[in-house]
């Protein structure tokens, strides 16, 4: 193992762990203002929106691939399928698409 790479990995590990860890130490046992609590409750849903778009549209150079994946997953989820079915169903739909085109 090259020692330079190992130092790089160690550095990456530390700067990745700190933001993950810090809030649990900083806000330990602290009651945050009601308004801030409200925002933090909103964060998961806002994060999901930002994680899905525009990323899902660009999973392939062929934009139709992404659009079809988005349509398949939203349809399956809207019909009430659980998460694993949504994942496997979307993979299946795109497999058929790339097999055909």
């Amino acid at each position, binding site marked *: *193992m090259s020692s*330079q*790479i*190992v*130092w*790089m990995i160690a*550095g*990456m*590990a530390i*700067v*990745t762990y700190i*933001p*993950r*860890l*810090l809030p*649990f*130490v900083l*806000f330990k046992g602290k009651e945050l203002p009601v*308004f801030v*609590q*409200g*925002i*933090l409750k*909103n*964060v*998961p*849903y*806002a*994060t*999901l*929106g*930002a*994680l*899905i*778009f*525009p990323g*899902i549209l660009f*999973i*392939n150079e062929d934009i139709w691939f*992404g659009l079809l*994946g*988005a349509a*398949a*997953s*939203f349809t*399956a*989820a*809207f019909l009430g399928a*659980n*998460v*694993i079915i*949504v*994942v*496997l169903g*979307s*993979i*299946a739909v*795109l*497999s058929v698409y*790339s097999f055909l085109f």
Partner: protein
Amino acid sequence: MAEIAVNKPATEYRRGLQSGISIAIGYAPIALTFGLLAKTTGLSIGETALMSLLVFAGAAQYISLSLLSLGTGIFEIILTTFIVNIRHFLMSTSLNEKWEDSQTANKAILSFGITDETFSVAAVRDEKVTSGYMLGLISISYSSWVVCSGLGHLIGASLPQTLQESMSVALYAMFVGLLVPSMKKSVKVVFLAALAAIFNIIFTLTNALSTGWAIVLATLLSAVIVELIENARNRQRRREHE
């Protein structure tokens, strides 16, 4: 006693494992490709596995490889990693509110495993989050990430082209599967997700911000704006009642 039985750590651990299955599936193709790319970039299998073991952050690991192949200095790579992963600060702060454990040490250790994916799954859970649940969720995701990174390097190939392409949708489909049930229950969730998506699309397409900051800013703007609007409406409704 019945209440204690419901929240037994072993049961929670198993529930966490179950919730993590889609993450493990989604990580497999990405980690295999990471292993393969790491090999092409000139990393040994030990270095590849070490990075996945210690860093456990997909986007940052990919970026480090492309920077390495461009001959970028180590300090710059570490700085870039920090910027890309700073979004986890927001996720941990949010998760801290619904994660019940009086032992801060448990949270501190398990926080190593907070990724976009483990956070999303835990954050939309109906019940409170426990450390047993997080341990299950993280261990299955982490195993898939580390094992598949090593395999990608070892085999020196990723999945067949067509399967690889269709599996690239997996994590996005998982996010959709996590989001939509809440959207059906609450208009507020629809606005939160749509607003953050629109902001992130604008930031990304205009190249205004790096990916890490774009997600942080889009999320915060949406969460704050929707909260302000809701507060204003509640105040108005109260005034009308008086």
